[in-house]
């Protein structure tokens, strides 16, 4: 693990990673999981959500998608509207009662469930117990595919160079960068291109991008430049927020490259039918 | 109430109902990664780190060091050396140059600073001091300035020559503090010196000789 943690790439400006968060993974693949779609995927990248379902189903896992789910509460939480975040979080907490793992196609929302729900409900013993139980069984999608499903894939797509962007909270709370790298590296025809300042924030930051649009704009502009310099033909990310930010900025600038959610990329690469489409 | 009492009262109320943390200091964290098997390894580490910041080493012996000091002064055309002539090493150096045709003049820091401030600042090209020891882990000399070797001796002259006995190099700062019992009595001034004075304040370009010595030479007595 530790070696994975030392980013080996010659990128002097990378933030040194924190220590691995120790986590035990279930020894056997569960029969059922919940999927939390996230608010951004729901309305902007629903295909990615569906691809996540397909990826999981192909591993023989039954996917449950409680229809009443909405948002993890993070936008309000990070804006300082803690009571409002708690109200929304509480509604989600009631939806995932069974002992199934909760799989989330976004590291930052997964981090919200895993690290911040227990803090949100610290004052209510009953809800706290539930939040802690949910935190224990929350997984980011790539993590779940890699560590729990232990996927064995065959890359079906043509050679391509991709750049990976990882959301900061996904990186720091969920180690998503490591999981996604490991998954991408299993695809024989996919060349993963590092980009300079890879670990630097893209400037999204939830409501930060609209509260401080100029600073955020400078950050995403630099991110787009770095991605372009990498020479990659596509950008993938496991986070809808960053995807919206980076692809929106690329489009506005008529720069950059096609970009997509990791779930869609993985499904397309490993599913012959999708490739031939 | 005085400012003191108000501040303390406020801090106390902030702590009301809490208990102080027990002391869980784990010495291994600051010692184990910085242990060196023997004297040679300690020397190697010290020389490596200090050389990396432009410290020069003269590796010599108890018998030879005066010659080496004179050589390095001569190489720089320096004819005056500030040294504690009342201490053993000063006397040794004085005895060594006696009768030499060409030798620098030795003089001591034997007056209060007020009596010769501008002379010290303007016309002392070099000083020689002893050291109390050194720390391999960080590449540092340990100096406890004294009446014979006051604080400014290691700071004002452009060239500082430091005598170091190899047996006095220890592994790390924690070990020094503990084995020498520093906590029981600190001098008015204790110093760690890890190279010549430097700055990177302009564009992060490293420049030596900022306010202190531009050159530091460690005369290492390997048999002492």
């Amino acid at each position, binding site marked *: 693990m530790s070696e994975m943690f030392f980013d080996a790439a010659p990128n002097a400006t990378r933030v040194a990673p924190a220590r691995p968060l120790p986590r035990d993974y279930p020894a056997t693949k569960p029969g059922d999981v919940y999927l939390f779609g996230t608010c951004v995927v729901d309305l902007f990248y*629903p295909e990615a959500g569906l691809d996540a379902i397909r990826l999981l189903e192909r591993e023989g896992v039954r*996917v449950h998608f409680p229809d009443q789910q909405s948002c993890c509460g993070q936008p309000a939480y990070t804006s300082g509207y803690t009571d409002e975040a708690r109200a929304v979080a509480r509604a989600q907490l009631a939806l995932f009662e069974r002992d199934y793992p909760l799989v989330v196609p976004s590291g930052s929302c997964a981090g919200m469930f895993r690290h911040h729900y227990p803090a949100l409900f610290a004052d209510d013993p009953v809800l706290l117990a539930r939040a802690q139980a949910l935190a224990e069984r929350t997984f980011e999608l790539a993590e779940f595919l890699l560590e729990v499903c232990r996927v064995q894939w065959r890359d079906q797509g043509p050679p391509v160079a991709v750049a990976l962007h990882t959301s900061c909270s996904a990186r720091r709370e969920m180690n998503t960068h490591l999981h996604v790298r490991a998954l991408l590296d299993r695809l024989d025809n996919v060349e993963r291109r590092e980009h300079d300042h890879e670990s630097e924030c893209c400037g999204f930051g939830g409501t930060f991008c609209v509260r*401080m649009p100029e600073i955020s704009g400078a950050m995403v502009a630099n991110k787009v430049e770095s991605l372009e310099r990498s020479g990659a033909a596509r950008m993938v990310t496991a986070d809808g927020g960053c995807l919206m930010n980076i692809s929106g900025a690329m489009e506005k600038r008529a720069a950059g490259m096609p970009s997509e959610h990791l779930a869609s990329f993985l499904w397309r690469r490993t599913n012959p039918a999708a490739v031939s489409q | 109430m005085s400012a003191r009492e108000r501040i303390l009262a406020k801090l106390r109320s902030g702590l009301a109902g809490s*208990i102080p943390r027990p002391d869980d200091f784990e010495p291994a*964290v600051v010692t184990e990664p910085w242990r060196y098997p023997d004297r040679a390894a300690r020397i190697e580490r010290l020389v490596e780190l200090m050389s990396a910041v432009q410290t020069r080493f003269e590796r010599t012996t108890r018998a030879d060091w005066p010659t080496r000091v004179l050589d390095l002064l001569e190489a720089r055309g320096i004819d005056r050396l500030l040294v504690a002539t009342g201490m053993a090493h000063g006397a040794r150096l004085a005895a060594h140059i006696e009768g030499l045709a060409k030798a620098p003049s030795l003089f001591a820091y034997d007056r209060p600073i007020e009596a010769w401030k501008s002379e010290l600042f303007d016309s002392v090209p070099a000083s020689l001091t002893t050291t109390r020891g050194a720390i391999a882990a960080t590449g540092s000399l340990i100096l406890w300035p004294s009446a014979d070797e006051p604080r*400014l001796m290691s700071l004002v002259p452009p060239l500082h020559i430091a005598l170091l006995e190899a047996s006095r190099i220890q592994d790390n700062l924690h070990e020094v503090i503990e084995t020498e019992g520093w906590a029981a009595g600190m001098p008015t*001034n204790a110093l760690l*010196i890890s190279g010549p004075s430097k700055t990177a304040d302009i564009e992060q370009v490293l420049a030596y000789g900022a306010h202190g010595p531009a050159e530091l030479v460690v005369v290492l007595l390997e048999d002492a």
Partner: protein
Amino acid sequence: MNQAARIPAVELSSRQLKANAHEALNDAQLRTNMRTAMDSLIAKRLAVMPEAEREPLRELGNHVRARALSKLPELLERLEARLTANGVQVHWAETVEEANAVVLDIARRRRARAVIKGKSMVSEEMEMNEALEAEGIESLESDMGEYIIQLDHEKPTHIIMPAIHKNARQVAKLFEQHLGEPYTEDVDELIQTGRRVLRKKFLDADIGVSGVNFAIAETGTLLLVENEGNGRMSTTVPPVHIAVTGIEKVVENLRDVVPLLSLLTRSALGQPITTYVNMISGPRKAEERDGPEEVHLVLLDNGRSQAFMDAELRQTLNCIRCGACMNHCPVYTRIGGRAYGTVYPGPIGAIISPHLVGLENAPDHPSASSLCGACGEVCPVKIPIPDILRRLREENVKPPAAASAHPLRGQGSKYSPGERSLWRMWVRLYTSPRLYRAFSFALTRLRRLTPARLGPWTLNHAPPRPASRSLHELAREHLDHDRRGADR
């Protein structure tokens, strides 16, 4: 007398972070200078801090600081007792005015005409230079970086490298203009000029002022780190030494500084240690031939005790002022230190300034972060900076009059009934499946009507384009009914 020092620095308002940032973002030179400098500092730190050493050390660093804070009043008293026994005079100040009064008292008693300063961020908090100048006392910075910016009537933009925002060309021009030196961009020559000018000043100064990195209660020792030697000069050559520091800087034992020292110099500069570690435990003794006759320590509160009252915010006071959080901050890297308008910029500035100047005077500071977490990841004493930023946002949007266990100065500075009701609507929408269904239906079906300009979003982005059908809808189609319920 140095002319530069007499003209008060023109500073940007700390209330206008956003507007200040606008200016900074459009300053291409600043952007380049900052990016280059921060990249290099990041790389240097990484090179000397292998993970295997770093993480246990950070843990220990955090322990030492947290333990000190857990008995802070007691340690301050012990420090005072030990220092007093050593012959050091200890002064307490709740406000910067009180602290300046202490300094001015000493200066008057000593009939001081010139003060030379080593680097001290607390003296920046006090605006000590201005206070002394107002009394006709010259106050000159001797740290090369501080000296450069004092010449240019500026304030430090970084807590370790005050002139980090300038390049050699800018310094060369400054020296040419103010010191009448021939123009040179050779850094060695520039430094030699500074050395020459300042050496005279050390000789003439009546008082030397310094900060403190760690104040050790056990031994009554003030520990200072530096590379240049100006700190040693300032604390040794003049007959009086005044050290100024915040009340949080105390540590319990001498050995406690071992991990902190190692963390500080490596996090700040990527150096295993600084050139000088200067441990001062008293004034000159009778038999000694140099060192100050008088040593004073001024302990300043200036809002720190407000942070201390709250267990979460108290962690802010763990800070050892290494600057690593700034070096790794994508926001600081882009807007520089000046835009913050506070003495401490960057992430540490964002979490400490609300206590020093009040949230009302730093209303945007907690929001000037994407909460990316880089700061918390590198902080050598493990301050959960992102959590504290979020907490301060919460304090900032509370109604100003709302009850609070430990009210913060300027609570509710960003309170907006309008925004709060928007979030309440958001709660209704996201807790009512029926409403949410209607909302997402409308959004996806009217997707082509998305306006071309959508507030701040479309400044940087193409207009957002909702999908034609939501994941809820796709899932309804794809999954059988019993996998879509709430399972209750």
